[in-house]
């Protein structure tokens, strides 16, 4: 392939895996990067030119992406040891911290192929905590209750969650083979419990979060809030749900069935 000689080249070290059950292996690629290149544009280059640094033509690297503006979460992977979105990982910044760019799939979700993982556990968790506002019915319900501006501000911060999985990748309690629900779903429970109409399902959400793998399995390492790309106050959400479950459990003890 012809590359522009003005462009700098950077080494990519990619952890690859052909199928969910096969063993991972590493391959290196040298990729030219124009100004403004990001990991996705370099992966596009590798897809078009799947030739390793030692000259072998290999199967193109598979990865996931969608929005390319860090709001969908699909392209999340471990870049130079840190979990983040590959669309917003600029090569010029990565080149300053290391000589090569190391790409690995997230370790807390099953690998589909190469850098693609199956995050469906996150979406199942959202179903478990009923992460929606119940408004469906057979007749018009009229306007909902008014949301105060202060409550809107709190909820806006929580609404930015894109279910990317960074918080879970960094969490020492969320593992590939356990049942912990993790910070993202706990924060969404807080989000919908704070909605004037959404709170009608609050008891269901709290009961789901009191089961094994629920909020009490949090170990308070607080890595989630450190790695969240959307700066969501995840540890405040965990504490808020901690209070809601405490109150709910005491009420259930004294007045529940």
């Amino acid at each position, binding site marked *: 392939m012809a590359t522009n000689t003005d462009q700098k080249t950077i080494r990519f070290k990619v952890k690859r895996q052909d199928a969910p059950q096969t063993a991972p292996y590493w391959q290196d690629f040298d990729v030219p990067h124009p100004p403004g290149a990001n990991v996705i544009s370099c992966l596009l280059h590798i897809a078009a030119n799947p030739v390793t640094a030692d000259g072998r033509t290999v199967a193109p690297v598979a990865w996931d992406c969608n929005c390319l503006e860090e709001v969908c979460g699909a392209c999340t992977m471990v870049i130079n*040891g840190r979990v983040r979105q590959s669309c917003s990982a600029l090569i010029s910044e990565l080149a300053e911290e290391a000589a090569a760019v190391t790409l690995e799939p997230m370790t807390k979700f099953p690998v589909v192929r190469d850098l693609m993982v199956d995050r469906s556990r996150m979406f199942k968790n959202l179903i*478990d905590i009923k992460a929606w506002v119940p408004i469906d019915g057979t007749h018009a319900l009229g306007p909902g209750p008014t949301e105060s501006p202060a409550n809107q501000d709190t909820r806006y911060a929580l609404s930015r969650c894109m279910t990317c999985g960074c918080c879970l990748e*960094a969490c*020492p*309690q969320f*593992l590939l083979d*356990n*049942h*912990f629900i993790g910070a993202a779903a706990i924060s969404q429970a807080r989000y919908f419990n704070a909605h004037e109409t959404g709170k009608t399902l609050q008891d269901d959400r709290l*009961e*789901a979060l*009191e*089961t*094994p*793998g*629920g909020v*009490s*399995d*949090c*170990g*308070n*390492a*607080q*890595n989630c809030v*450190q*790695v969240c790309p959307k700066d969501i*106050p995840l*540890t*405040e959400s*965990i*504490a*808020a*749900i*901690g*209070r*809601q*479950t*405490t*109150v*709910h*459990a005491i009420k*259930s*003890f004294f007045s*529940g069935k």
Partner: protein
Amino acid sequence: MTEHTPSTAASSGDPATSFLQQHHFLFRRLHSLSGILPVGVFVIMHLFTNFQMLGGDFQHEVDFIHSTPALLVVEITLWLSIAFHAGLGLVYTFSGRPNVRRYRYGGNWRYYLQRITGFIALGFIFVHVATLRWRWDLFGWFTPFYVRGFDGQPLAHATTAMALQHARWVVAIYLIGAMSVVYHWSNGLWTSAITWGVTISAPAQRRWGYVCAALGIALTVFSLGAVVGALKYHVTDEDRRSIRMTVDFYESGGTDADTKPRPHTATHGHE
């Protein structure tokens, strides 16, 4: 609490496991509570009492504690609380996988240290209670703690001093053990406020962190002061004679309702 059947964990057929799972939230909260209240409050009292070895009236404090009505009930409550907290703590610890090498945040280190100090504290508390309270003879380090001798002479400071002055490794074990206990409780007090939902906002968590750190520093000072107080005490020949006669008295059938007869009755040299 809530008898909600979990979709994630209902599959286990083991009755003990499913009992734990059915009451998962309750057990988690009781685990937290058992660490803060019975164990934690006792640790504060205990370390403050020990601190009196540095210039205070240690014998008076210990006499006061031993005048507590139904002391054995209090002790058994503490032992059960520690066993409950430690047993569940071990199960919970192995449900996570520390990752401090990849994520080097302060909170992640505190999470890791909380588990490490839990292990150390469990081992330390066992050795501590076994040697001083149950008067076991571990590896020739026979240092039974007596509040008073068989004829009433004060022995609290002397027996504690002899235990600590036995060897340098004993001092090392006490320093590491006490620091582990202090860290585990102070950090546990901080995280429990998040767990229960007492501190919600990040500034509130930070403020409560300062309070817990201050408590931890105070308890550290108490512990260090106690160790210094035990090491500074000059164990006299008179003390040794009293301790020897007291040991012999109880070993030859002297009455002490709290003391089980030990199988090991050989004479012990401390000189």
